[in-house]
């Protein structure tokens, strides 16, 4: 059984249809990249999977681990092992990174009937994650994303993933706005979290991240549909030819990029 099964997914915001029948199958252990031009629906797909109510699903199904994902509350999706790294992580002044993360980890553990982590166990998990992302201790004492640079925010997302250890991680443009050093750190974090018990869906506009994180599959999303799927070599082709030719295939005039 696939971990994630998206079938004919349609979603809209107000009157604007953005997803127009997405199909996607993701198995444990796989890394999928979803690429596509701006406005193609990549972020919408990520947000719909995470449970953002701004988007209304009008048609189709999403099955996660055999369960209907679309009826679940966002927190229950997280507790079932789904994680989304935000394209724009939210700044929350006054809420400490450490407090927030501990609350998250323990909410998830409680749901699963596991005992809450005590301070020592939590520290151990956190230290491991901080080492992986090259973060120092002061980081945990700061308010959640408050005043963080773009790179720090993205690192924090992957750090949270390292601590929460999801089964399915959706990374929404985690590479955007990163300089090459930050990109390497983030990619290294992602790579070390790859494994047979985890699947990842990496949403990206540029092929740059894929130089460091080699996906098993690449899908191109254009005009709300997956118009092409292939192996990692597809990234190179897209880098060379752009998205125009695929948008034409999808029956839409090229956006001119």
């Amino acid at each position, binding site marked *: 059984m696939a971990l994630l099964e998206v079938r004919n997914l349609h979603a809209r915001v107000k009157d604007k249809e953005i997803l127009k029948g997405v199909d996607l199958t993701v198995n444990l252990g796989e890394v999928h990249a979803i690429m596509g031009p701006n406005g193609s629906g990549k972020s919408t797909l990520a947000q719909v999977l995470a449970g953002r109510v701004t988007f209304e699903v009008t048609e189709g199904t999403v099955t996660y681990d055999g369960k209907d994902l679309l009826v679940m509350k966002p*927190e229950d999706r997280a507790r079932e092992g789904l994680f989304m790294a935000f394209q724009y992580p*939210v700044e*929350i002044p006054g809420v400490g990174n450490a407090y927030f993360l501990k609350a998250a980890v323990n*909410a998830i553990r409680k749901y699963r009937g596991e005992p809450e982590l005590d301070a020592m166990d939590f520290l151990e998990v956190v230290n491991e994650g901080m080492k992986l992302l090259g973060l120092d201790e002061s980081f945990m004492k700061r308010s959640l994303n408050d005043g963080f640079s773009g790179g720090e925010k993205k690192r924090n997302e992957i750090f*949270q993933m390292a601590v929460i250890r999801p089964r399915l991680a959706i990374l929404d443009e985690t590479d955007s706005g990163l300089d090459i050093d930050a990109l390497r750190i983030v990619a290294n974090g992602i790579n070390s979290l790859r494994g047979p018990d985890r699947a990842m869906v990496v949403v990206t506009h540029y092929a740059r991240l894929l130089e460091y994180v080699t996906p098993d599959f690449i899908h191109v999303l254009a005009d709300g549909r997956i118009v092409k799927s292939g192996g990692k070599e597809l990234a190179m082709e897209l880098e060379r030819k752009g998205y125009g030719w695929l948008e034409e295939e999808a029956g839409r005039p090229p956006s001119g990029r």
Partner: protein
Amino acid sequence: MAVAVPAVDGYVSEFVRSSADRSRRDVPWLGDLRKVAIEQFARLGFPTIKHEEWKYTNLAPLARTPFRPAGVHDGPGIVGEKLKPVTFGMLRCTQLVFVNGRHASRLSWHRPLPAGVRATGLAEVLRDDPMVVEPHLGRHARSDDQTFTALNTAFIEDGAFVHVPKGTVLEEPIHLLFLSTPSAEPTVSHPRNLVVLGPASQATIIESYASLEDGSYFTNAVTEVVVGEDAVLHRYKVGRESEQAYHIARTEMIQGRSSNVTSHTISLGGGFVRDDVNTRFAGEGGELSLDGLYMLGGRQLFDTHTKIDHVAPNCTSRELYKGILDGASRGVFNGQIFVRKGAQKTVARQTNKNLLLSNEAFVDSTPGLEILADDVKCNHGSTIGQLAEDAIFYMRTRGIDEATARNILTYAFAAEIVNLVTVASVRLKMNELVLSRLPYGRVSKEIL
């Protein structure tokens, strides 16, 4: 402008009825002070909403309630144990307890204080040593255009008197606990406090206003605070009156040269609360941090007016008031900063932020600056908003349920003020109170 003449008459005739008793005890200047005050009160009456200072707060319910003077007793039935919820746990402090505005020495306790420090009831000082208070009482909190100050002054009986002599540093706080004991009929008390810090002295003073039971009563408090040259005052006020109570309070501070005052107000209780905090920089180089947090629910009303008067140059004031309003509660913030001619190099910052948790809650925020000097750095601002939905969603995607996410965000909003409290056991208590008032049940204590 004035309404409810019968109610005004009620207070005036009560004044006349009890005046023979008072005049036996009063020194002449106090008698004169009262006489002027009751005349001012009779002339001013209760302001209506046409009065600029009372624009958003309708006094009619208070004006038409016939409050009787609260009885004189030291709170029989109140034993130390019962005070636990309204005190500060392990805090080592001198604690003066007042029941219905009168010093209850049976419930108070004194820790060793440095030589010359006085912390006692005002009635005792007026009886034994009135000369000490004469230069201050009624001199700073003027009553010519202030109905409630006039009313308080006319009925001065008791309250706290704290005097810290020159160069003396109080290591431990002084807690002034004002308890009301509601009875079947609504009662009124007029606590009158005087705090005098001599030059280069230092003190931490906590004022709590609370009730151990619910009931309708009216606390009309006036506090005059004189902060000498180079003196340092940390002042806390904790409002925890019954939710059926009226609480009207005015704090009038005068700051000497290079004095430093921090004032934190946390208002959680009371059905109808008006809290005025005014300060005047009388000498150069003074500093003031003025902070407040009001957390309201149900049909509570909290109206605060602050005035910071930069008379002298080179003074700095920083003001931050935050409000969290739930239910059908109402908040009013009115901040005025005056920078007088010649008060050059003034730095003044004023901010009011409000968080509305329900559609029925309402707040009026009026920051204000009036600047007559030309070399100053001043700004002010106010915000009114709701919890950020994108922040709630973010937290939910990490497994935190919606109610907890809302609580955490609400707490975080309040924590900015609570964290300014430097006395650890007071801060802990504040945190507890804030957490217990979060709208979606208790957040785990780990948040601290």
